[in-house]
């Protein structure tokens, strides 16, 4: 039994080492803006994908958008939705349905010619979507 455990661990490690081939990848940057859609807890997001090295728009990629709540990781996972591209200019649109109001980390998963992931945390409320401010506990008020 001990032998099996050690061999399995060794195999796992070897598998890891064989996966090492570092080469510079294209990095993406994203500009996201979201607005509430007409149904509660649904939001329409417009995402511009840009190559962070050359500042050129990235088009023709497959973009899926998922979401997770940072304060309870994994508990409020939103299934990734595919985004549609706007006539090939690096702008993508997607509608996401969330479970709660509050701060969500949007995961933009890129695949196709480039594999990457960009994460952006936004605060989703009923009437607007803005930058997330880290949650402050109620504290003392100064005069």
């Amino acid at each position, binding site marked *: 039994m001990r032998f099996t455990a050690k061999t399995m661990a060794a195999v796992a490690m070897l598998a890891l080492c064989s996966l090492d081939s570092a080469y510079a990848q294209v990095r993406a940057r994203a500009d996201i803006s979201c607005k509430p859609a007409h149904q509660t807890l649904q939001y329409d997001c417009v995402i511009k994908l840009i190559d962070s090295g050359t500042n050129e728009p990235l088009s023709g990629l497959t973009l899926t958008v998922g979401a997770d709540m940072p304060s309870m990781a994994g508990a409020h996972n939103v299934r990734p939705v595919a985004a549609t591209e706007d006539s090939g200019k690096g702008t993508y649109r997607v509608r996401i349905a969330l479970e*709660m*109001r509050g701060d969500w980390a949007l995961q933009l998963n890129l695949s196709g010619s480039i594999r990457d992931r960009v994460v952006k945390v936004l605060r989703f409320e*009923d009437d607007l979507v803005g930058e997330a401010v880290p*949650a402050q*506990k*109620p504290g*003392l*008020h100064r*005069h």
Partner: protein
Amino acid sequence: MIDLIQNTIDGMMIGSSYGLLALGFTLIFGLMRRLNLSYGPSIMIGGYLGTVFFLQYAAGPLVVAGAVVAGAVIAGIYVEMLCFAPMKAGAGIASMVSSFAIWMQLEQAAILVLPRHTYPFPALATGAPLQLGPFLIRVDHLIMLLCGLGLAAAVQLILYRTRFGLGLRAIIGNSIAAHLVGINVRMAVLFAFAGASAIGGIAGFLVLATDQQITPMFGMWATLKGLIAMMIGGLGSIPGAVLGGLLLGVAEAHSQWYFGPQIRDLVTYFILFAFLVMRPGGLLGSAPEAAMTQKA
């Protein structure tokens, strides 16, 4: 120098509410030797009920306070009957984890009813703060301090001067013996639980009225503050709960003034950790050795 005293005054005011939270906690823990992780959330339920009264019926502070206490008591009894009453003697962790599960439940229930991130809460006393020499004292802070000390004194009185209190102390000492002499342990524990929740409700109302808002984070916040204050002051001690609360409030006020909110929290936890490692009984606590031999 003025800042130092002003911060100390502010800290003591807020600290009195921490002391009240600790009071409720210490009653439950002293009675049942179990940690109730739903304490803060049940107070939050009361707070949400108060907000509903405020928003729907434009109720005044006293009515809202009543609603908060009522809500806290109802939630507290729910927790007691689900998480603590049915558990057998040795199942300490189980009831604690159970209370955690109910914490999640209560928090989600609150968010379902009132989904926004923050809701307004009525103010306790508007108007300019009192001037005492070079120091400013907010009226609502003063009310908080007076209520805190008054309630703590009342609880001490009840525990040591009434038959009910005598019964509770008997149960704390040895619940089987108490049962044998005819004390209705079940009812007494239920009453004490309700009482602790009511105290927590008052503390919650005072804090929320001073902040004038309520958020879903309030449940965890209240639990943590009450827990820390209780630990610093010493488990099972009522003056300890008050003292712990005051100390916590003062430490927080000073840390926040000089270093900001993050360091403030860091200092709070560090004080707690240091106390636990060096003096687990807290300042005035009783029988740390008994707790030392507590099985998990």
